[in-house]
């Protein structure tokens, strides 16, 4: 704890250099804890209602393995490339950081594209938010995650613009690190959507 006395510590990675940055990062972890609670309520609603399909299709009839797997692999790979971006940042390489952030963005955009196509496909099959309790809770849960990913894409674009304008500073490094936490977290949520919504839906 002797370290806490230093306001500026040269031995740490850029994003941890100032006390303000360290507190920002800790604060973001607290926010992620609240996000876990938010998604927990949506998962609870979905898991309570997912067999209430009314006159609409069941999960088993609706879900397609291939589409779900493509979305899963796109998001998982984007989480990996986002990790590589932070790795490059810690080596002090701005170009590597920007390259991997851009790859992450493209994979994220690919994920959203496939998700929107999936939703449109469902609606064309007559499976809309109004069809059944299963579909209402499905669209709210998966849609909330998709909205988070869309927000993450916009956020990451802004961070890239700042990096281009200001370069790697303790401040921009901290912002990159925080957006990376957000991005990885979205993959954590998706792992549970993949497992509890799609795989479980295809089993039961």
């Amino acid at each position: 704890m002797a370290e806490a006395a230093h306001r500026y510590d040269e031995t740490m990675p850029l994003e941890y250099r100032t006390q303000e940055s360290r507190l920002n990062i800790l604060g973001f972890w607290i926010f992620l804890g609240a996000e876990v609670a938010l998604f927990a309520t949506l998962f609870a609603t979905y898991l309570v209602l997912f067999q209430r399909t009314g006159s609409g299709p069941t999960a088993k009839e609706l879900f397609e393995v291939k589409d779900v797997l493509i979305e899963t692999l796109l998001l998982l790979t984007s989480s990996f490339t986002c990790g590589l971006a932070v790795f490059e940042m810690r080596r002090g390489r701005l170009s590597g950081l920007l390259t991997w952030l851009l790859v992450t963005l493209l994979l994220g955009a690919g994920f959203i594209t496939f998700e929107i196509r999936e939703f449109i496909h469902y609606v064309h099959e007559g499976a809309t938010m109004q069809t059944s309790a299963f579909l209402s809770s499905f669209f709210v849960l998966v849609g909330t995650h998709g909205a988070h990913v869309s927000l993450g894409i916009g956020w990451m674009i802004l961070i890239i613009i700042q990096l281009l304008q200001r370069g790697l500073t303790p401040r921009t490094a901290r912002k990159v690190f925080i957006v990376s936490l957000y991005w990885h977290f979205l993959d954590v949520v998706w792992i549970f959507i993949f497992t509890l919504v799609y795989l479980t839906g295809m089993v039961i």
Partner: protein
Amino acid sequence: MGVNNHHETFPWKHIVGFIFSLLLTFAALWVALSSGLSAGAIIGIIVILAVIQASLQLFMFMHMTESDSGKIQTINMAYSFFIAVVVVAGSVWTMSFVL
């Protein structure tokens, strides 16, 4: 504590995390679709696989335990997952008594 400026030249941690995540994803897929186990067993196994994969993300990609506040961060996330389990399992169990 756990973080310093000593750089690795190759992102081994990330690559290992990524490969394990892929393996866990495909393992879950196989268990769900091709293992022929009972629904209860399948869901138990794939939930465990999901928890392992989520932990990989938290530890290997998000560096949860690094920095001075690593402990606070870890306790915070553990507590939030506890809340999640209570909310989800509690709701499902309660509502299992409704027709």
